[in-house]
């Protein structure tokens, strides 16, 4: 990431000037696309959030009205609490699972079988969210879905996983955990492999038990990775959309409305672009705060 910036010259030679021009031409396509699709839209979003806008007529400035109506909106507060619950289910589960898998495979299964297991656990990562949602929807079916067939085979009663308010959100979360664990395991695994063999052998010579080694050596060394994985996980889970859209459509009732889903419905079903933008700007602020917390934690660690 660090590079030597162009040294200031007393007088630009024609060659330098030409180099600058060529450089600009090389950067230009990315600049145009990044501006159009990544930078300008943020400011437009901010602008829309102060307006009443539905695309049929030009945006109408209404100041802070949209923001004032945010917290009195039951749909929004419910979706926020659902999203937080969803984050609290997915992030700890996928982080702990991926950590344990990576460490165990790295320590005890450094053979072809272990690498096969790693490959298999990674496969759900490449399944699209919509395909995952479709398959799990059918597995969750109350009548004859795979999971309920297993439950019935053991003499239990079929559960309507996605149809019950209490179980709908956790059932969606399970799909996310299934899909994400392999991804984070790969990152953890690379981290564990970086722990030098010397450190581990020294610990073994010192007679540290495997549990102590894990707790006092592996875990502290993996701390930066854990910070990163937790941050990525929170941000990813905070924006859950595809799974909810396909699996429950926000239901039953509003039990699985999430922030991203609410933005979608406000904007593209109610055509309330101004209000939806205000919600989106709040989402942006939350995500920037999460980043901020992570970077400060990192700094503390370095000091």
């Amino acid at each position, binding site marked *: 990431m660090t590079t030597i910036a*162009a040294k200031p010259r007393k007088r630009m030679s024609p060659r330098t000037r030409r180099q600058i021009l060529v450089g600009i031409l090389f950067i230009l396509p990315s600049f145009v696309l990044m501006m159009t699709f990544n930078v300008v839209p943020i400011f437009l979003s901010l602008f829309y959030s102060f307006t009443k806008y539905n695309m049929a007529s030009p945006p109408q400035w209404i100041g802070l009205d949209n923001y004032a109506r945010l917290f009195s909106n039951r749909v929004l507060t419910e979706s926020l609490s659902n999203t937080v619950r969803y984050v609290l289910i997915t992030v700890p589960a996928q982080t702990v699972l991926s950590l344990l898998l990576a460490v165990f495979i790295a320590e005890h299964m450094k053979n072809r079988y272990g690498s096969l297991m790693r490959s298999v*656990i990674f496969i759900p990562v490449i399944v*699209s969210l919509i*395909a995952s949602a479709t*398959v799990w929807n059918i597995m969750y079916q109350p009548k004859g879905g795979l999971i309920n067939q297993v439950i019935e085979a053991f003499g239990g009663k079929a559960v309507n996983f996605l149809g019950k308010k209490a179980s709908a959100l956790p059932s969606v979360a399970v799909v996310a955990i299934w899909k994400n664990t392999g991804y984070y395991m790969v990152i953890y695994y690379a981290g564990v492999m970086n722990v030098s063999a010397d450190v581990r052998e020294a610990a073994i010579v010192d007679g540290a038990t495997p549990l102590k080694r894990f707790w006092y050596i592996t875990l502290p060394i993996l701390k930066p990775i854990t910070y990163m994985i937790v941050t990525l996980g929170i941000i990813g889970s905070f924006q859950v959309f595809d799974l909810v859209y396909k699996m429950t459509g926000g239901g039953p009732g509003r039990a699985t409305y999430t922030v991203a889903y609410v933005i979608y419905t406000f904007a593209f079903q109610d055509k309330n672009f101004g209000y939806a933008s205000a919600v989106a700007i709040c989402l942006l602020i939350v995500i920037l705060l999460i980043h901020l917390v992570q970077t400060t934690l990192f700094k503390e660690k370095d000091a």
Partner: protein
Amino acid sequence: MKKKKRISPWVGLGIVLVTFFAVLCLLPLIYMVAVSFTDSESLYIKLKDLRPSFYNYWYAIVKRDFGTALKNSIITVVGSCLLVDIVSAMAAYGFEKKPVPHKEALFQGYLATMMIPGQVVLIPMFVMINRVGLTNTYAALILPMVGAFGIFLMRQFMVAVPNELLEAAEIDGCGEVRRFVSIALPLVQPALVTLTIFTFNAAWNNFLWPLIINTRSEMRVLPVTMSTLASNSTTNYGMVMAGATLTFLFPFVLYIFLQKQFVEGIALGGVKG
């Protein structure tokens, strides 16, 4: 440290648990493929319902627009990969090898955009694309695929391209474009492969943006067709699962052949999936 010693019962238990988890990872996909080969209307599938017939696939592709969606997805993915590779490599070359003023500030600006959640730019993008009349086009799906991650990744590798080599080529009378194409690009090829994999997956699995911007049925991509199809005919499980299998198949084949690059790419840049 690893001699031929007996596996302790705890380690044995661990191996069993890892295996169990791996089976759980695979099970939904096995189930998906199995159901796609049955013609049962109910989900209580017996072994005798399984048949090696591609009827469900034929039905999904011909009768349920999966053929169109497949075509659209492939065009979008190929276009996205080409655009992202070319634009990112060019930008990385400019940033790394040319004395452009204020380039580091601009680069930091690029990196900052990686923190922006998709929902924030969605509405303005929707309005813009509508205004310029690009709805229901491939361009609407392809152009926004360029992002900071690709440029960042390419730049990490562009550092390793020796300046001496580029200078020597310049003295030999090699033009700017040729230096980029015949010297820089071959040297960053591994990064291009990684970036192509990332872009392939992102474009192939992209859902929300295609859902809102390409609404005409002949311009839908696979995940969008998938989502409409399953809600219209909930009982035809075989056909739905055939569609899901088709959607899964292409990234899976890519994964089988390029597994190392997949995993290394994530471990390396590990930012966006």
